[in-house]
């Protein structure tokens, strides 16, 4: 299989997953802003920080009010992480690999992009936002299901899976960072607020119900953390996504040693984390480190399969 094709499939999956996750994030953050009292340290600016592109935001916008932040996150074509950019990139990558993907895959991605483009340019975006974001989440899920159900699970599909899971791990860690970045002092009232915040984090990942089945008690910050980091069954928990990635690597991808070692390292890091201590302090640094490791994993994937040098002749 050609490296270019593998790379484009990987990025198709990453961008689709990122589009879905950005939609989830904005949807849940909008709700959070409506529900939390002022002065608890949650503001629109944080959404920009979570997205990982504060410098880019500051270079194009003067204030970080709702309007600007939403525009930046959803419809700004200059923001490489905005919803519309993700969908357009997914479409471009899919278009150039469509011989390998069931034709409905391309058609759905194309329609999704056209739909989002039209809606985001619409006059009633503020009113329709919730509906639009829910639609995007649903349609991305549809595409993921379509590929899982109609594409042969050979090497091409493994790259789709790797892309999706790596992007998912990235977003879950970012969302955990929302919790960690919100400094809430001691006291019963504060504790209640913090619990509400973590509930939102769970909801944004559609994880609330699964968490309740898993923990069988009310939302407690350290339990949520353990669930989102260490649970191997919930599809958006970091441990699960890493397991998926490792299984892709072992599923017929050649010379996989280095990327596989990086996943094992990440898995160990997660498994050995002391959640109670982390919750008390150091969570942000821990997440930062995780993200760095995920970035390294991407580089190893790229070096092993996408960007070849002359000395790798077989």
């Amino acid at each position, binding site marked *: 299989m*050609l*490296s270019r094709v*593998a790379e484009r499939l990987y990025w198709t999956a990453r961008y689709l997953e990122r589009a879905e996750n950005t939609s989830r994030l904005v949807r849940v953050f909008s709700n959070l802003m409506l529900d939390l009292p002022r002065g608890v340290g949650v503001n629109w600016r944080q959404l920009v920080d979570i997205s990982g592109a504060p410098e880019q935001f500051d270079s194009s916008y003067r204030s970080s009010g709702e309007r600007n932040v939403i525009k930046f996150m959803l419809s700004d074509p200059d923001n490489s992480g905005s919803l519309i950019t993700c969908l357009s990139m997914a479409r471009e990558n899919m278009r150039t690999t469509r*011989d390998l993907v069931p034709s409905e895959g391309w058609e759905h991605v194309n329609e999704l992009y056209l739909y989002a483009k039209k809606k985001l340019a619409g006059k009633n975006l503020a009113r329709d936002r919730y509906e639009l974001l829910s639609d995007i989440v649903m349609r991305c899920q549809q595409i993921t299901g379509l590929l899982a159900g109609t594409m042969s699970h050979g090497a091409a599909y493994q790259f789709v899976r790797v892309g999706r899971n790596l992007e998912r791990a990235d977003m879950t860690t970012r969302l955990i960072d929302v919790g960690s970045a919100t400094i809430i002092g001691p006291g019963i009232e504060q504790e209640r607020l913090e619990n509400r915040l973590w509930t939102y984090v769970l909801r944004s990942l559609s994880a609330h119900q699964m968490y309740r089945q898993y923990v069988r008690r009310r939302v407690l910050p350290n339990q949520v953390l353990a669930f989102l980091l260490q649970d191997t069954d919930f599809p958006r928990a970091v441990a699960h996504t890493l397991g998926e990635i490792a299984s892709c690597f072992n599923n017929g991808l050649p010379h996989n040693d280095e990327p596989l070692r990086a996943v094992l390292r990440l898995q160990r890091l997660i498994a050995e984390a002391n959640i109670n201590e982390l919750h008390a302090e150091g969570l942000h640094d821990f997440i930062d480190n995780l993200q760095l490791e995920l970035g390294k994993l991407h580089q190893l994937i790229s070096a092993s399969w996408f960007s070849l040098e002359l000395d790798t002749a*077989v």
Partner: protein
Amino acid sequence: MEIDWKNYEPGEFYDEMISTPGNPRLASRAVANYLQKLSSKQLGRRQNAADLAITEMGVTFTVYSEGENIDRTWPFDIIPRIIPQQEWSHIEEGLTQRMTALNMFIHDLYNEQNIIKDGIVPEKLIAGSKSFLPQCIGASPRYDTWAHICGSDLVRDSDGIIYVLEDNLRVPSGVSYMIENRGITKRVFPELFRKHRIQPVDDYPSHLFDMLASLSPRPLDYPEIVVMTPGIYNSAYFEHSFLAQQMGVELVEGCDMIVSDDDCVYMKTIDGLQRVDVIYRRVNDEFLDPEAFQSDSMLGVSGLMRAWRAGNVALANAPGAGVADDKVVYTYVPAIIKYYLDQDPIIPNVPSYRCDDKEQRDYVLANMASLVVKPANESGGYGMLVGPHSTAAERKKFASLVKRNPRNYIAQPTLKLSTAPTICGQHVEPRHLDLRPFILQSDRTYVTAGGLTRVALRKGSLVVNSSQGGGSKDTWIVDTRGK
């Protein structure tokens, strides 16, 4: 739209199916009678079934406009164009003869140039040719064959004779439509295939594969063959991807390959670099190799010409093969056949006037209104003057173009292209058409059974190109012996 052949009027043109109103030709008789029995509703239903099949099969050509890529379906007419087997065998022989001579000609031009020394073609013909590549001088591709895949355009004039209108030796396209058209007709008229002995066309990809494999520089059971495309925005991308899939080989772009210090070509795969033996390239000469052609092409591979000259990779068609696809060279093809094979051409050329000859030029300038004037090096019907359909201003402009650069122009009488019945809205009317068979040549020659029939859907129009309102028909080679 019920069909009654008595009301079908081919006029002064040769019609492929109906000789005179009410009288179908022998090979077409069964189909004509069958169509006449269909009710208007049934006929409409068949056409709808064909349109649906085309959409479902995703048969498209690409039009790039306004920054958006549009895949258009190519109009398809369900009434097949039928050629009797006996006539086709003759054409097949003629095409084989023509390709053999042209390949000898190209090889000679890049090596000894005997044909020039013997005074058959003038030296200035080569000196003035844009398609003669100095980078190819002295090269010796396997079997001395340069043009491996050719799509010659054949037309029939009102005298019933089939002529070669041009030879496409660069990157001819359309063969995928030929195959898909057959698939559609089989879905639409399955009963006709039971009754007729129609030669199949879907074995083309396997012949293409075998031909490409025979070019491999390494004696391997499974040489690494690839189809090289300029990419998704090329109008023939559908065909590139179709052929790669049908042959089971990789569809690559220039950026997927590199030439290493050993002058071998490698493609970048997830398993590492993999040596490539044969490249069926659908990229034009000038974009193949930025190193050899001093271009800033992003479509090519640096060093590709080096690897080809070293004999480490086969390119089909070989670079420089386009030199024989020049309209002025075309006028010499009968002499070329005579020179190399000592035979008379089996399929005639359309009579042509060379504008670099004073006497012929004067004739062209005096008779522009009845002639077709063509530039030597364009394809797709561009830059051409169709005399009878031209304005005085256009003729004046062309006269000055011809005078300024006579080497670059030829002229031909305006042909009365043959017609075939075509469904046009609620009626069946004659429409003009041509035929593009595909010829594969290496140590052996293979000619497709029939080819791609292109039809000008606008009434009276002679332009069959897909980009200019053309459509296509399935082409049947039918055995009529014993009828």
